[in-house]
């Protein structure tokens, strides 16, 4: 029950973040006169955002190395987005989808990993200073 509650909490946070992204895309589409997304597309992306939020739970696992967890998160989120892209029919074939998505995914994950490492180093510095001052 506790795990299920956690899955739903993380899932809804994911949907919430996804809703902002979808809203931004809708606004951009309206501004540049592109085709607006339909209700089914919206549903697929809300579901994908929920799943990505739920998948984020694995980053809180202590048993595995953080780099490995990041890789697992990458693979799972990539598969979810690939599924949503396929359902929405955005790309011509699976290979084209992968080619289009991979660079963005690699950049986002590399950036996030670097931020996490930088924050860890800053935390180390702050705690060591506090320990020294005690």
């Amino acid at each position, binding site marked *: 029950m506790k795990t299920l509650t956690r899955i739903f909490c993380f899932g809804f946070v994911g949907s919430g973040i996804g809703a902002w992204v979808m809203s931004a895309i809708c606004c951009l589409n309206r501004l540049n006169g592109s085709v607006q997304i339909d209700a089914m597309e919206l549903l697929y992306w809300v579901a994908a955002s929920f799943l990505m939020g739920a998948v984020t739970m694995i980053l809180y696992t202590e048993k595995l190395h*953080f780099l490995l967890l990041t890789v697992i998160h990458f693979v799972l989120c990539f598969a979810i987005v690939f599924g949503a892209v396929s359902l929405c029919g955005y790309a011509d074939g699976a290979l084209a989808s992968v080619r289009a998505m991979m660079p963005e995914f690699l950049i986002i994950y590399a950036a996030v990993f670097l931020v*996490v490492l930088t924050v*860890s*180093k800053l*935390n*180390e510095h702050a705690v060591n200073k506090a*320990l020294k001052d005690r």
Partner: protein
Amino acid sequence: MKLNLIHAVQKETEITVKGDTASEEVQRILAFLNADAGQGVILLEREDERFLFSPDEIVYVEVTGGKTNAVTTQGIYEVKEKLYQLAASLKRDGFIQINKSTLVNIHYVKSISAEFSGNYTAKLKDRRETLTISRTYFQSFKQFVRR
């Protein structure tokens, strides 16, 4: 329980507990004294012998193989209380939980270093061993150190 109060003119108040030191009653008294004074005593065991230690002398407490062990400046002793009970009673003495099975006395932490795994390693003063601060417990550790 028999209670003797003896008036004496001395600087420091002295408390002597006479009886089965492993009994629940004595444990309750110790817990009360610890909670009240913040710097109390803790009952540790080694080879069927019981010893009273000041929390100052305990470097860290670790659960290994289902047993709770206190690593002190004078060696390793067993503790009867559970880790979560110790975490609550020793908080005021500078103890903080750093992973699922370890409490550390902050006064013995020399420095920490961030690991690539996302965890942190704590180096201890005058000791060779290091302890792992897990990601889950790091924020509370950081707040505890900086308060």
